[in-house]
């Protein structure tokens, strides 16, 4: 890929940028989940690798979080945008060269930011932990170039309308730039106190709500119709999904601070808006599941469909939790417990990751014109992700309920730590299984690029029989 960085744009083969983004995403996924597994080991066995600040939990925790959010998830999004946006516009990507440079700058910026975070150079603000020069870098060299490439591709489309997926892509790349600039105002202009606390969570909420959730959903709007051959069940429900994301998902930031002294009207408003997130959620899930009509056998037989539908099904518990756990009636019990950690992983490792994995599997096979090297390894990857994640989610949810009970009944804290210990071990085992699955995936994808069966022009990879 690097050899094309200085080539003329028209000499770069279509899809080169997507391949760079895709493989970068998988590598970041391996790194991010490896760090997660290591961190989980430290919570289960605190004396495992000790006495060195670079292996201290407090130095590594945020590196795991940012490696998976901005490395794996966001680069998989970039990959999806590089091949899906032009495909849906019946055109070519506006600039493959910009796409390649964008991926390179993304990898450089993220590596730099993560090294700084690892060393403890942090703004001290959760999810916007990167120091402000890195935040500016992210906007200028990572988000805005992606935005320009997606927008120019949509503008130069050769279709009359814009398909649902591309509404989401185009609006999300714009919104994430706004969110980065606005959410980091406390660092740029040294805003302090409650303003800083609130904007921290405004950023954290919106980077999930206006970037990760809509782009992941947009991917499913492409993969399911594309692979099953069914048209999208309803564009009107797609409209409802899109507009309710913009209106309802951008407003409940304060529900992350329900127990903090914010103005009461703001908390009540956020809580009501938080329940309304169920509107886009139900619209999305029903639209995708109804699109599957008559093709449910592919949920069993086809890897990409299985990944996507599993992710979509996980959106159901995700949004039932998300809609109600932030109301005052429930939040007082589970706030600050492992329940929330489980919920965050249901969003990022459950719902979102499964959708992106499908897009990366599908996209790399289509662009490289190679069928997946090994279905067995693909299946193992799927099941290790699903079983590993489920182990993690169940154990952390139980641990969270224990913590909640300990909090309400004012149990001495150390008794809660003792009670949680078995679940910490289960969480570590689950996380490690996810990590091992991803190592298999990286190998499988590498071998696909090298030795996968060649897919003839005009054919989808799943139309070919497996040779292995």
């Amino acid at each position, binding site marked *: 890929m690097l050899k094309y960085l200085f080539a003329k744009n028209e000499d770069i083969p279509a899809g080169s940028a997507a391949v760079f983004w895709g493989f970068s995403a998988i590598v970041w996924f391996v790194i991010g989940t490896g760090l997660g597994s290591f961190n989980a080991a430290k*919570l*289960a066995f*605190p*004396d495992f690798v*000790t*006495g*060195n*600040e670079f292996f*201290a*939990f*407090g130095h590594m925790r*945020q590196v795991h979080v940012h490696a998976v959010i901005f490395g794996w998830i966001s680069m998989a999004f970039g990959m999806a945008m590089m091949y899906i946006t032009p495909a849906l516009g019946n055109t070519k990507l506006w600039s493959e060269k910009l796409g390649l440079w964008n991926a390179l700058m993304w990898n450089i910026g993220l590596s730099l930011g993560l090294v700084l975070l690892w*060393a*403890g*150079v*942090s*703004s*001290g*603000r959760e999810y916007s932990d990167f*120091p402000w020069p890195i935040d500016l870098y992210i906007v200028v060299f990572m988000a805005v170039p992606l935005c320009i490439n997606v927008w120019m591709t949509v503008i130069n489309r050769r279709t*009359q*309308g*814009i398909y649902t997926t591309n509404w989401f892509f185009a609006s999300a790349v714009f919104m994430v730039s*706004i969110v980065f600039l606005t959410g980091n105002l*406390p*660092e740029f202009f*040294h*805003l*302090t*106190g409650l*303003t*800083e*606390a*609130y*904007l*921290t969570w*405004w950023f954290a909420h919106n980077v999930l709500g206006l970037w990760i959730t809509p782009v992941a959903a947009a991917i499913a709007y492409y993969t399911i119709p594309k692979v099953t051959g069914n048209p999208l069940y309803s564009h009107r429900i797609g409209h409802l999904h899109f507009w309710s994301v*913009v*209106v309802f998902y*951008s*407003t409940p*930031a*304060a529900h*992350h601070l329900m*127990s*903090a*002294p914010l*103005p009461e009207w*703001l908390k009540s408003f956020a809580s009501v808006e938080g329940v309304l997130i169920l509107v886009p959620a139900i619209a999305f899930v029903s639209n995708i599941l109804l699109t599957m009509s008559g093709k449910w056998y592919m949920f069993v037989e086809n890897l990409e469909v299985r990944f996507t539908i599993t992710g979509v099904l996980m959106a159901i518990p995700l949004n039932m939790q998300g809609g109600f756990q932030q109301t005052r009636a429930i939040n007082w019990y589970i706030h*600050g417990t*492992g329940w*929330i950690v489980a919920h965050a992983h249901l969003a990022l490792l459950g719902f979102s990751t499964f959708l992106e994995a499908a897009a990366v599997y599908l996209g790399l096979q289509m662009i490289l014109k190679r069928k997946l090297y090994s279905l067995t390894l693909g299946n193992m990857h799927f099941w290790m992700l699903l079983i590993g994640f489920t182990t993690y989610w169940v154990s952390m949810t139980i641990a969270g309920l224990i*913590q909640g009970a300990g*909090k*309400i009944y*004012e149990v001495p*804290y*150390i008794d809660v*730590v003792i009670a949680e210990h078995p679940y*910490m071990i289960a969480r570590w085992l689950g996380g490690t299984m996810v990590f091992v699955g991803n190592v298999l995936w990286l190998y499988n994808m590498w071998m696909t690029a090298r030795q996968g069966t060649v897919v003839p022009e005009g054919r989808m990879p799943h139309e070919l029989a497996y040779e292995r």
Partner: protein
Amino acid sequence: MAFREYKLGARMFGLALGGSMCITLLLPAFDFAAVASTDMGLDKQFTAGHETGFSLDDPFLLGWNKPLKVTLKADPVTGQPMEAKEVYVYQKGTTFPAGVLHPRILGKGIEELSVQKGKISEAKKDAGAVFGLAKDGGVSYVENLTATKGWTTAVVMAAANAGKDEDISHAGAGKTMFVREGCWWCHTLLPEQTQDWQVFGAPPMIGDFNGESPTAFGSDRKAPDLLHVGSRNSSREWMMLHFFNPRLVQPHSIMPRFDYLWGEKDANGQKIDFDKWRTEYDQYRNGSRVTPPDVPAYSKNSEIRYLVDYMMSLK
């Protein structure tokens, strides 16, 4: 069907996102701007200084550019004994906290008194300044003691250095350690309004944060809340053992060891032999040693001292 330009959709999108940002950013901003600082908020702000996260003044979070909090038991100019008073020493070149740079954020009433009576606008960064809290008719305000009483940083630090070292607090640098070491990934600084009163103490009030950056509330409570830890446990010795190896005082703790914050040398200037300590501790753990090895006393300027000072300041 013609090529669609989505003019209406683009406008509606701008309206929707703009309206959302109006409600969630602009409207709360009016409320936040009207919040007057509580006494606790004033103390926290002047103890921590301008910024305890990343800033160009302290890019590696080593505790640079932070104030000292000094307890004075005698007037530093005349030497007359007086009731103990806590003052915040911003030595030459140290950035002043947000409340001095922009007095408006102190809140209505406090701002006017601090500027007119407390003369905080006269503080000069290149000369340094000493601040203290004062009261006028029940309203607290910030006083620039260098301007009002002639307590320059040199005079106050001379008095402090002549007194006991424990009267000097590096809590501002300690909060930087708190941020850098990621303590806030597990320990919240936010007792919850509904159920934390008995164990972790009173939840914070709305004016407790003016001028503080970062607030570092934390969101995931894998460990006890620390907002009032200095009131629950004021033993520096316990803190020292607990930071060096939490399992020494709490066998079931899952907190990491922070022995690396001790630095190279202990309080007596002796090099700390960490490998020997860990070997002996492992012998203690497997039963071949009766007592754990002694924890080295930390030196006056070690990072752990800063962090313990910060813990002690969380009243």
